[in-house]
């Protein structure tokens, strides 16, 4: 028996769409169901995931729809979504609305505490707002981990005829998609965060710089800005679209790009807080940083700072990606270990083979072996292990991964994406790739490998920004932890 007059909630997040959510939605409608498109719960291995009266069904294909409606979903029935262990163990502050609201629906947003942070900021005024952000301990979620409140205070203390808020939505790191999920799933939260920043530092205009690889996010944020314009007025927002350059995720390159120039990194000082966009004082923050603001303003600094460990306060939306069984968005307080994330929560590899390596922090982050899985998620703990949290993307590799190929790719990527301003990055990337090729061919392997390590040092300390400065991290960690992948016997075996 097929039930009628039921409402099915399905995500329209790009990952769900890429897994066929539209076809599933159409099948539900063809069966007479009403379909509501909501944000994604972040349980990506279950997408397309349909929700009917709180119960989840996934991953669905159009053929499964009649079984779901007929009450015969079998293994596709995952039970009540809110009780799912993947969600239950999370602390969702930034992703509190994920899966629950229609992204562009203003009523949904207002009904789930939307705009309350902005109200609180308007009531308490710029000074108190900045104080709250400072006391919350919120650090920039883009990778550098610089305290957001200090940035804001610096801009607030300048006097200028024009100041700007810039949102860095150039989420180029592989294994990261939390910015995309915020923009596609909860765009008003980002807009609210930017409006609060504008109020706090005295900026009347803001830009969201979104990478061109995210067409769905661009469309959603543009539509959301149109609808929320009156609510955030007199603050004004505009979306700008990148053009396929990774290095534009670096804040000063991004500012140049916004100005219509080549995305070349600027030397600091001057800091963007003093001379940023068009030479004016500018707050430039990552999507997740700005998206955390409304919660902090509504619940207070202490409530946020109570989460976390050491100098890493609050929660971090961690992204589980690559060869992992339960991939998706996992927001939790700082302090959780890498092993818990990969094995317990992520369920190990999707292929079922042993985990060989995990890259944390995108293409500029180190590869860590399972022996280091006791390392807690904390900015300082990662730095101590010559690794970085970055934007908190985790890529899992199984034992078939060739770490010499991944080290080579680190240099190759830097070669493609370097802005070319400083020599260690521009030339070092090419030389690093060439020299690793020689190692792979068995040409003077030991000497060439030590040459690569030497080059890594030059790049790390001689480059202007993180592009050249951190490319050595993945390369060097691969060499250090998996030296056997760099011996030529393997190459010879393959050739025979």
């Amino acid at each position, binding site marked *: 028996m097929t039930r009628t007059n039921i409402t099915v909630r399905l995500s329209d997040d*790009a*990952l769900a769409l*890429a897994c066929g959510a539209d076809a599933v939605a159409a099948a539900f409608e063809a069966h007479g169901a009403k379909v509501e498109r909501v944000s994604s719960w972040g349980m990506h291995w279950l997408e397309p995931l349909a929700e009917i009266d709180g119960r989840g069904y996934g991953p669905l294909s159009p053929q499964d729809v009649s079984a779901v409606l007929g009450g015969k979903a079998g293994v596709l029935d995952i039970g009540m979504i809110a009780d799912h262990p993947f969600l239950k163990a999370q602390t969702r502050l930034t992703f509190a609305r994920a899966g629950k609201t229609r992204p562009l629906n203003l009523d949904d947003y207002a009904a789930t505490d939307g705009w309350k942070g902005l109200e609180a900021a308007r009531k308490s005024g710029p000074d108190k707002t900045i104080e709250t952000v400072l006391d919350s301990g919120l650090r920039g979620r883009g990778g550098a981990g610089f305290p957001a409140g200090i940035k804001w205070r610096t801009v607030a203390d300048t006097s200028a005829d024009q100041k700007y808020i810039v949102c860095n939505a150039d989420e*180029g790191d592989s294994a990261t998609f939390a910015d995309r999920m915020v923009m596609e799933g909860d765009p008003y939260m980002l807009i609210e965060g930017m409006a609060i920043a504008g109020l706090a530092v005295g900026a009347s205009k803001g830009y969201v710089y979104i990478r061109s690889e995210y067409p*769905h996010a661009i469309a959603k944020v543009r539509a959301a800005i149109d609808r929320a314009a009156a609510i955030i007025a007199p603050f004004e927002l505009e979306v700008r679209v990148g053009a*396929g350059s990774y290095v534009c995720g670096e804040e000063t390159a991004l500012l140049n790009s916004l100005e219509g120039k080549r*995305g070349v990194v600027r030397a600091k000082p001057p800091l963007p807080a003093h001379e940023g966009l068009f030479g004016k004082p500018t707050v430039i923050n990552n999507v997740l940083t700005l998206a955390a603001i409304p919660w902090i303003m509504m619940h207070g600094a202490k409530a946020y700072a109570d989460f976390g460990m050491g100098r890493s306060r609050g929660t971090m939306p961690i992204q589980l990606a690559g060869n992992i069984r339960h991939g998706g968005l996992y927001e939790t307080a700082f302090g959780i270990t890498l092993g818990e994330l990969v094995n317990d929560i992520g369920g190990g590899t999707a292929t079922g083979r042993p985990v060989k390596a995990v890259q944390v922090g995108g293409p500029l982050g180190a590869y860590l072996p399972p022996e280091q899985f006791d390392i807690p998620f904390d900015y300082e703990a990662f730095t101590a292990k010559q690794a970085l949290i970055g934007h908190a993307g985790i*890529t899992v590799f199984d034992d078939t991964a060739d770490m010499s190929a991944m080290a080579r790719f680190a240099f190759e990527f830097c070669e493609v994406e370097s802005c070319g301003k400083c020599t260690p990055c521009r030339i070092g990337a090419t030389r690093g790739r060439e020299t690793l090729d020689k190692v792979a061919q068995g040409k003077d392997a030991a000497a060439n490998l030590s040459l690569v390590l030497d080059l890594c040092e030059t790049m790390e300390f001689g480059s202007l920004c993180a592009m050249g400065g951190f490319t050595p991290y993945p390369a060097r960690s691969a060499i250090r932890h998996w030296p056997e992948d760099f011996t030529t016997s393997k190459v010879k075996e393959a050739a025979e």
Partner: protein
Amino acid sequence: MSEALEDILKRHELCEGPLLPILHDVQNTFGYVSDYHMRMIAAGLNITRAEVWGVVSFYHDFRTEPAGKPVLKLCRAEACKARGVEALVEGAEKAAGSRVRIEPVYCLGLCSGGPAAMTPQGDVHARLDSEKLNQLIGSLS
């Protein structure tokens, strides 16, 4: 100057830092940014042709010649590598032949569900295997 190009320049008259938005619109309208377009943009913004060329040549997105065929962007970044995209490349190139161009892209943000690809229309596809990828390539025109 063509009317469409004139429209694009006019639309961005009040825009701060208008060059990238203009170039995006030109490429969306004409399919590429020609030498002629660059001259007209330079004149319109009162900057040198060298400045326009510098920007066009810096960014991976801009083409100075028509693509001539549909372009499928296949993610080749770490997370998709971890999920086996490299093993699909040779077969994809074969399926594409001279009809479709396969270009690498470094991350579509679908990293928990790779291998992933994006069509010229901006449609995204995840969990690709060789069969699904070849089918997708076959469907492009």
